Structures are given as C-alpha cells and as structure tokens.
C-alpha cells in the first residue's frame, strides 16, 4: 500500500492533470485490443471461419445479441461497432490489472518531460521506507478502468452520444419534448436522470474494478498465506471483469435505445 499515482501536470495548463499510469494503461489496452482484432481479421474468409476469426465472430454475435435485446436490430445495427469497442476495451482493461503490478521507487525527486512528478515534499511526507530512506513508490501498471477519470470519461461519452443520436433519429423537437413527458413536472427528474446515468454508469465500473485491485493489494500483504486467496480472488475478478464489461455495454445500449425511441 501507499503507492502513489504518477501525476503529471503541465505548468502552462494547470488543470490538465494527467495520471500517467492511467493514460499509459489506456494506450496499452487500446493497442492490445487493436492487435487482437486486427490479427484475428487478417485472413478473413466468408467460407468456414477458423481460429481467431471464429472467436471474433462469436464476439460480434454476442454484441449483436446485446443490441437485439435492447432495441430493434434494424435500427441498432449501426451501434455494433460502438458495442464491440466498448466490450473489448473494458474487458481487456479489466483483466490487465489482475496479473501484476509495476512499481518504481523514488528516493529523489523524479522529473518527466520537464515536470516534477515526485517532489522533495512528497518524499518528505511519505511514510514508506526503503533501506532506511523515506521513498515514494509509484504504481504504473493497473486496469485503466480502475480509474474514475477513465470510466467517467466513457460514461459521459456514452450519455452525450445518446443525446446526439436522439436528436439525429427523432429530431430536435421530439428530443426536447421528451424532457416534458409525461408532464412538465417531470423536467427536473429527467435532468437528474441524465446526471445520475452518467455517474452510475461510470462509477459502477470503476468501483468494481478498483475494489478488486485494492483487495488484491490487501491479499498481497498476507505474504505466502495469501497465495490461495489471491488465486481465488483473481479468478473471481476475471468473472467480475467480464460481467462489468457486459453490464457497461448493455446499459449503454439501453440508454441509446431509450433515447432513439418515441
């Protein structure tokens, strides 16, 4: 415990804080998803599919099923790419944090791209000791989805997309009218609903995965006694990761279908 996130803040843009580990993991996850997807679709055949193509077609069918269960498939066919990107990114992201961590130990201030990430003050305030020195430990490897910045970014994207699709499919008039149905009194409720949707969608995923990683860290404190619980919990975390990817995708589709139907 006591690992800090490597936060990089550009001097000229103080609000643009970047959690380097999160962003690194976002990029790693995206690259892994891309490699899997592109490798699986290198030798496409419309005949009998083999190996990875088979697997990916199964994923496509699965997402098709998710969309089909929430809306009319004729309307929903265009959302298949969104659903596929969501489920693959979240599932792979959820799994990435499970097998390992990658920690750097800093006794001295550490600078990245001209910005101090570990400052004298941080080392001074740190409670972590290493070889008798006060040090700062930075955690670099984790699930990107174990960071609220990532999950909220995704949920906000989804909610914004639902509004865009709503205007596109129903027209601006119907879109606005929906806020006052079934009576104008419901307008505040609708506003709260949109807000709540964004928060719950993002925090559900974040909470599940973050809690899973915290528990792994706690189990690791147990030493050798923790090997069996660790295995059990990591197995369960794979299950949780899959479920959360599924839940996020199906809820996104439900929100979209709510917004594009009369």
């Amino acid at each position, binding site marked *: 415990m006591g690992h800090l996130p490597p*936060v*990089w*803040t*550009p001097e000229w843009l103080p*609000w*643009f*804080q*970047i*959690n380097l580990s*999160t*962003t690194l993991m*976002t*990029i790693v996850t*995206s690259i892994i*998803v*891309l490699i899997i*997807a*592109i490798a*699986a*679709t290198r030798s*496409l*055949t*419309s*005949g009998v599919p083999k190996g990875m*193509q088979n697997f*990916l*077609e199964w994923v*496509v069918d699965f997402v098709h099923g998710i969309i089909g269960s929430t809306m009319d498939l004729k309307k929903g066919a265009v959302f*298949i*790419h*969104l659903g*596929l*990107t969501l489920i*693959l*990114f979240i599932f792979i992201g959820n799994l990435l944090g499970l097998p390992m961590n990658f920690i750097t130990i800093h006794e001295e201030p550490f600078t990245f791209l001209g910005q101090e990430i570990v400052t004298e003050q941080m080392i001074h305030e740190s409670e972590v000791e290493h070889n008798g020195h006060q040090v700062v430990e930075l955690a670099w490897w984790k699930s*990107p989805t174990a*960071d*609220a*910045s*990532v999950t*909220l*970014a*995704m949920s*906000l*994207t989804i909610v914004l997309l639902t509004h865009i699709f709503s205007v596109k499919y129903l027209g601006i008039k119907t879109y606005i009218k929906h806020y006052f149905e079934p009576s104008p009194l419901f307008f505040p409720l609708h506003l709260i609903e949109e807000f709540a949707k964004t928060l719950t969608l993002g925090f559900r995923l974040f909470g599940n995965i*973050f809690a899973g990683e915290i528990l792994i860290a706690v189990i690791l404190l147990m030493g050798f006694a923790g090997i069996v619980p660790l295995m059990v919990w990591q197995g369960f975390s794979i299950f949780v990761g899959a479920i959360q990817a599924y839940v996020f995708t199906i809820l996104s589709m439900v929100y979209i279908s709510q917004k594009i139907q009369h």
Partner: protein
Amino acid sequence: MSIYLGSFIIQILAFGILYWLLKKYAFGPLLSVMQKRQESIENQIQTAEKNRVDAEQYLKEQKEAIQAARQEAQQIVENAKTSSKKEAEEIVRSARDEAERLKEQAVQQIKHETDQAIAKLREQVGSLSVILASKIIEKELDEKAQSQLIEDFMKEVGDRL
C-alpha cells in the same frame, strides 16, 4: 480518488481513435465478410429449395412418363394379339381356299383326262374296227356272219365304254 482532467480527455480521444481504427481495419471487414456469408447461405438455401421443387417436378414427370409407357406397351401387346389372331385366321382361310382350289383343279383335270382318254379310245376303236374289218374281209366272211360280228363287236365296245 480524484479525477484527472487530462486523463479524462485523453481517454475520450483514445476511445474515439480505437473506435475508428477497429471499425476501419477490423470489424468493418469482419462484418462485411459475415454479411457476405449470410447472403451466400441464404442463396444456398434458396437454391436447395428450388432444386427440391424441381426434383419433385421431375419425379412427377418421370412417373407420368412411366405410366404412359406402360399404357403404350399394353396397347402394343393388345394390338399384336388381335393382329396375330386376325393373321392366323387369314392364313387358315387362305389355306382352306387354296385346298379347295387345288381339289377343284384336280377334279377338273381328272374329268378332262377322262374325256381325253375316251376320245383317244374312240379313235383307237375306230382304227381297230377298220383293222378288224379289213381282217374280217380278208377272211371273206359271209355277209351275215360279218354283220353279226360287227354288231357284236360294236355292242361289246359300246358296253365297255
């Protein structure tokens, strides 16, 4: 927990880029291939259905053709039977006619030959009587005896004929 706006914005951008790349290079082609397969399977099912209908049609036609052929064969056998019967009757009748004719002819011939024989005999008798007469004359018979002799002779000849 804190929200890092930089990471937040980078995440949105990264997700958008991932979406675009996946759509362009992975799932776009994959979906079009799946679409193609679906179409080809639909085609195959339709073709199979059409073939089945065709096959049924052919089967029906074949059955009809066999039925017709069987009827025709039956007809031919029937015709052959009647014509052979007719022919047999014809043969028998013509044989009978022929026999009748031959018999007639034979009778005719016999009659003719008999007549011829009678004529020949008459001739011979004539010449014989001349010879006899001359012989009798040679013996110089008396008139009475001679005429008696001729009369007896003629009687004899007449009786014999």
